[in-house]
């Protein structure tokens, strides 16, 4: 951010006029530089991928779980199965092909996911909160296609709207989508094809990991964010990179594309 950037607060406003959603979307888009085939969940991943296409990754091809590839929707899709994605798309393939040939077929460069909880190796929980699997405190949506995205994509980017000790946890209440580190501890089943979660973009900063047994490391914080605060907001003993960087503030160009072209009615940029 520019001069006058306030300290990070827990509200949605990051700068005078940059919201947390905008910040997350812009940093997610930047992480996609040079990537080509992206499997995007709805919401911020879709926005981020569209932004990347207009900025750092013009050749990007978005693939939706509903089977749509190369969509150019006239209106922002409200879900991954919004019929607005279809007119003008490059293809709508059957769901068997999407799951068997594209995801399991290892055709995805980056899978862009969210989750309720993440652990230090990037295993994800989107199934339940509580310690009784049969009667959880909160039943969450479940895997959907997240297990298959984790197993088949070369990398997973994770976007988490709120970085807290309840979302960045030592032990997941339920391992929905296992990291390669976790999968390697089992002796049954096929090892994930890719590296698992390599980038986590949160409202506080960015964490990365690249090898199976490597932990997520804090590699950048947003301007004004104290790295010690990120460690406090993380449920495990978070490693901090020695060459920790500050992220670069959103540029006027990025904000303009995002606000004026991609989400003018503020469906996702709350």
């Amino acid at each position, binding site marked *: 951010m520019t001069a006058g950037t306030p300290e990070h607060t827990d509200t949605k406003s990051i700068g005078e006029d940059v919201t947390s959603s905008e910040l997350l979307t812009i940093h997610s888009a930047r992480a996609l530089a040079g990537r080509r085939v992206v499997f995007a969940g*709805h*919401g911020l991943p879709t926005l981020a991928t569209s932004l990347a296409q207009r900025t750092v990754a013009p050749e990007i091809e978005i693939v939706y*779980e*509903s*089977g*749509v590839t190369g969509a150019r929707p006239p209106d922002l899709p*409200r*879900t*991954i*199965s*919004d*019929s607005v*994605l*279809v*007119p003008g798309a490059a293809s*709508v393939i*059957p*769901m*068997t092909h999407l*799951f*068997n040939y594209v*995801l*399991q077929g290892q055709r995805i460069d980056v899978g862009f996911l969210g989750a309720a909880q993440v652990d230090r190796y990037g*295993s994800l929980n989107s*199934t339940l909160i509580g310690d009784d*699997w049969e*009667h*959880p*405190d*909160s*039943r*969450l*949506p*479940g*895997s*959907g*296609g*997240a*297990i*298959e995205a*984790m*197993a*088949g994509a070369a990398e997973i980017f994770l976007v988490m709207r709120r970085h807290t000790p309840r979302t960045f946890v030592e032990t997941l209440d*339920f*391992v*929905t*989508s*296992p*990291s390669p580190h*976790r999968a*390697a*501890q*089992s*002796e*049954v*089943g*096929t*090892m*994930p*094809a890719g590296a698992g979660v390599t980038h986590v973009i949160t409202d506080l900063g960015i964490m990365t990991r690249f090898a199976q047994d490597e932990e997520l490391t804090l590699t950048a914080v947003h301007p004004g964010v104290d790295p010690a605060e990120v460690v406090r907001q993380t449920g495990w003993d978070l490693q901090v990179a020695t060459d920790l960087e500050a992220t670069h503030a959103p540029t006027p160009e990025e904000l303009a594309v995002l606000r004026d072209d991609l989400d003018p009615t503020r469906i996702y940029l709350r």
Partner: protein
Amino acid sequence: MDKTMSLSEAISAHLNDGDTVALEGFGHLVPVAAAHEIIRQRFSNLTLARMSCDVIVDQLLGANCLTGLIAAFVANSSAGSLYELRRRVEHSDPEPLWFDEYSHGGMVARYQAGASKLPFQPIASYRGSDLAQKNPRIKAVGDPFGGPPIYVVPALNPDLTVIHAQRADSAGNVQAWGMLGIQTEAAFAGRRLIVTVEEIVDESIIRSDPNRTIVPSHVVDAVVEVPRGAHPHAVQGYYDRDDAFSRDWSAMARDAESVKQWLQTNIHDTADHEEFLALLGADHFDKLGIRDAYSTPVNYGGRE
């Protein structure tokens, strides 16, 4: 062979209490009117197979039609929670629910095995997932080609499958476009199959574009014309999704009593889908209109 009938006839002829019934459609072409007719006819003890849930799951639960659910995603799409479902799962309220849980890829594989009359389908995911621990029906087989054991999921063969599509001829050659979900596999996996469509058309329309057929007639037991049969979901080329309806459902269904009242007014007190739609208001679909966008015709020409 003419397989057209009314929705009421089709459901009563092909569904029995205790059946496993698949209602498929991935946020598009969802057989909502058929779900309502199942409620209207007060079926019970059903197990619902539905890869990705939505309001009809809450409605069938609220109407006490279901004792089991086979699914991979149990929220109301992006519109919020399904509170009837959460009450069942979190508190067994009003009764427990047998929940057979997979991922979307697992459900795809189950339907594929069912359609193919195979006992199971291998799947490359699940290694290290608690889902494989929680669900004893996710098993493994050895790999005779030298790899590690691989997970497999069992075939799913519903007693009845219902799908919704844009159009069919009266013999049951079904055509659909836009997002097709797992409907073809669910159709072939079913022991019986009902297809509801926006329009029954002359066979010459179907036969002008045979690659558009997603299910051939010999698989179909009943064809039912039900315009707007997928509301609040979209039908490509016919109407848009009704997000307000889905959001309002999630807000309303926090209260079990409200669900009961909604079901009484909207389902039990209406004779059929047309009456259900009438309660939405005469101009309700005006705001769900679409802009036309026709495909470029292709040439199917063959030998003269």
